[in-house]
């Protein structure tokens, strides 16, 4: 249930605990909140058990701690999420690569109409 935070997510081990300040979750940029939300939603949808995510995050963290990868918490989170989404066949590395490049090139920009956002037919 989206309105009932899962304590396995909200209170992970100290090494991989969600960044908080005075109790509040801290997102330093909007994408961090999106990445957080996607990971939680995929877990709720049954794509992976949370244990798989937290273990992935722990190994990303360990790898970063070994040096060489000075990434922030949500960079490691995103890396974990991406790997899991690919491993579970939700996306392919290729399409992700292509779409990211398109966004980087600004191909999908200026979607910001004033009216309601177009929703692709379901």
């Amino acid at each position: 249930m989206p309105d009932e935070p899962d304590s396995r997510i909200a209170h992970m081990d100290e090494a991989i605990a969600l960044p908080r300040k005075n109790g509040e979750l801290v997102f330093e940029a909007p994408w961090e909140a999106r990445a957080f939300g996607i990971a939680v939603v995929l877990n709720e949808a049954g794509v992976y058990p949370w244990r798989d995510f937290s273990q992935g995050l722990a190994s990303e963290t360990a790898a970063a701690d070994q040096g060489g990868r000075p990434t922030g918490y949500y960079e490691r989170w995103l890396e974990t999420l991406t790997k899991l989404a690919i491993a579970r066949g939700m996306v392919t590395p290729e399409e992700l690569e292509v779409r990211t490049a398109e966004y980087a090139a600004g191909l999908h920009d200026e979607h910001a109409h004033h009216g309601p956002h177009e929703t692709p037919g379901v």
Partner: protein
Amino acid sequence: MSGNHHDSHHPGPESSAALRTKALEALLVEKGLISTDVIDAVVRAYEQDIGPLNGARVVARAWVDAAYKQRLLADGTAAVAELGFGAPQDAEIVVLENTPTVHNVVVCTLCSCYPWAVLGLPPSWYKDYAYRSRVVREPRTVLREFGLEVPEAVEIRVWDSNSDVRYMVLPERPAGTEQMSEAELTALVTRDAMIGVANVQVPVRVGRG
């Protein structure tokens, strides 16, 4: 996914991580696997994680269980933990009981220390300099501005939170709630009442004695 690290880390409007997140979300949405609304809802829920409800449960329990109330006032941290709230590394929680002669109100004059394990996110006014400075000097006036009229005969005690001690108010149980269950009582308790800027109100349908 491989080799897609931050080699081209440009300080443009969007970081590489932001772009990759956007791409991932868009693809998952297009495939019908997730919806942006659900992501929004999840983020909101976690941002409001450990909301005031935890504190409300503590208060309602204290109202219906005199022994629990005693433990709560004697050792707030332990009594709150009994209900499964709070985290071991948190600051001590001290619970202050409102009575017919004493009204307690909580502030953090230095910053915004707050018993988040029981009350969730502090409201924005709690962090405002105006509240932090004025509630100490003129609590009765400030409370009146919140809509809370504290009779002159009632002593107002202002408690300054800090990094070691977080205060929470145990509001008075309103008259007319004698028949209510613990769950119903929980629903009455507001965040503001546990900060001490409001009293707990009885909904009209219950009626006052």
